[in-house]
């Protein structure tokens, strides 16, 4: 591999496989994430997208394969090395995972104080700065408990708490799930701005295509070919090439268009043909 490209790789997932009991979740997942890019992993619910993030941050150990963060294996890391690697990473959980026994400011301050051992002045500065970065008014939300916030605000506090740690890598697990379209768009804008303002490398797991198209530099599509086999990578590329690939892969096309039955797309094309009496080469929709 070209040395320059090699140096740009921040995360390298190598032949990752995982099974729970007899149920295979992931099979031979391999991809690289480059510095400062936003990689979006798309796929249906239950295909193991979130599991990939959990492997990357070392919450789960893979059955086979390896994950390298800046060239260091997180799978084989000792407890101390794991802690050091995690300091470079931040994760925004699907359910936000805000500590509900603390206020918003305590949520942000707690890890800064206990894990990074910052002084109170710096903590204060970071609370205000990060809340402003996610477009929240610090004075309004600081003293509130997470239960008093709306879904979108909780998500933004969760992002603020993560970026306050100043990670180099940000992992988002379904950041727009359960939010209305306008709030989703707001979150997408924030995710995009994190990349430009903080120059972070991001991996976003989502099944929201609108969000994927807005934030992705590159997209990975994972899917299961049958129930017994684990999810595999079906596509890696830019959003533009995704559209081209989708014309060749019926299941991908169905996912992107949000159609339950891939065959329905074929029927839709037939209707189109009849309506406009044009011939469309159907073979391109079948892989």
């Amino acid at each position, binding site marked *: 591999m070209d040395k320059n490209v090699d140096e740009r790789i921040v995360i390298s997932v190598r032949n990752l496989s995982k099974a729970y009991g007899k149920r295979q979740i992931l099979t031979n997942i391999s991809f690289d994430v480059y510095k400062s890019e936003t990689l979006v992993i798309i796929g249906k619910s239950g295909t193991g997208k979130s599991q990939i993030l959990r492997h990357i941050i070392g919450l789960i150990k893979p059955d086979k394969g390896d994950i390298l963060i800046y060239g260091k294996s997180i799978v084989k890391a000792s407890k101390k090395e794991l802690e050091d690697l995690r300091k470079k990473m931040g994760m925004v959980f699907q359910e936000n*995972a805000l*500590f*509900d026994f603390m206020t918003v400011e305590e949520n942000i301050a707690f*890890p800064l104080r206990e*894990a990074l051992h910052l002084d109170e002045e710096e903590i204060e500065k970071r609370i205000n700065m990060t809340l402003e970065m996610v477009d929240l008014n610090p004075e309004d939300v600081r003293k509130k408990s997470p239960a008093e916030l709306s879904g979108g605000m909780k998500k933004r506090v969760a992002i603020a708490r993560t970026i306050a*740690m100043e990670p180099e890598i940000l992992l988002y697990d379904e950041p727009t799930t359960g939010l209305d379209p306008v709030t989703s768009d707001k979150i997408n804008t924030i995710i995009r701005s994190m990349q430009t303002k903080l120059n972070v490398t991001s991996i976003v797991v989502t099944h929201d295509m609108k969000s994927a198209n807005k934030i992705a530099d590159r997209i990975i599509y994972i899917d299961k070919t049958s129930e017994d086999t684990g999810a595999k990578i079906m596509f890696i590329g830019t959003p533009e090439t995704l559209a081209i690939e989708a014309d060749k892969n019926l299941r991908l096309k169905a996912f992107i268009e949000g159609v339950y039955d891939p065959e329905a797309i074929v029927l839709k094309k037939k209707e189109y043909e009849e309506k406009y009496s044009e011939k469309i080469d159907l073979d391109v929709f079948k892989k």
Partner: protein
Amino acid sequence: MENSSSFWVRFYKNYERLVEGIYHIYETIVNIPLIFKNINITIKYMYEIGVETFPLVVFTSIFVGIITALQANYQFDDLVPKIFLGTAILKAIVTELAPVIMALVMSSRYASATAAELGTMAVSEQINAMIVLGLNPIRFLFTPRIVAGIIMFPVITILSDVFSYLGAMATSVFFLNVPAYIFIEGSKKFFFVFDVVVGLIKAAVFGFIVTYVGCIFGYMTKNGAKGVGESTMNAVVWADILILIFDFIVAWLLF
């Protein structure tokens, strides 16, 4: 591969949760010196265990005293002089009844609450969030509770000793026609400070069991609301079983 793995590797695979559960005891103890950095967390739990439970402790203890007095009187059945009523009751309360009954009551109240709280944190990924943010969940969730338990259970037990004794004395005076001075005189006979010490050692052990079992079942919760329910139930059941087992072990070692 399977054949070449050692006994311990296979043991770990089969009893992963048990091994993990026992391993966290070690981690909990290692983190004890760090509680002074966030002593307010430990104090909060000490307050929860020792102060907020006060009405429950008083109520339960008075009834333990009343029932013990009635039961002892029935069993003495005019064959044993009434002066020994105080002797028997005080010994029973101090060495066995107060620590064990308080521990069982606290297991229903505190082990269940802890398992439900930590269980909810586990299923809503708050515990994973702590790990990812570089916060050791054992240090912040387990150790303060366990230290609070070990300190406050003996305190509760002393309170329980006092109120049980008063309950028993009141019963003897008003229902069993044993004057207070005879009851007290009987209590002084054969009273050893060692009995109180045994009761307090038991209480400290039970304090550890109730808080740790609550924490560990909560921490290892999986599968949403149903999982939280199961953890809560298992925490109370296992805390109760371990209380009785360790009651035997401590008594066997010390008497």
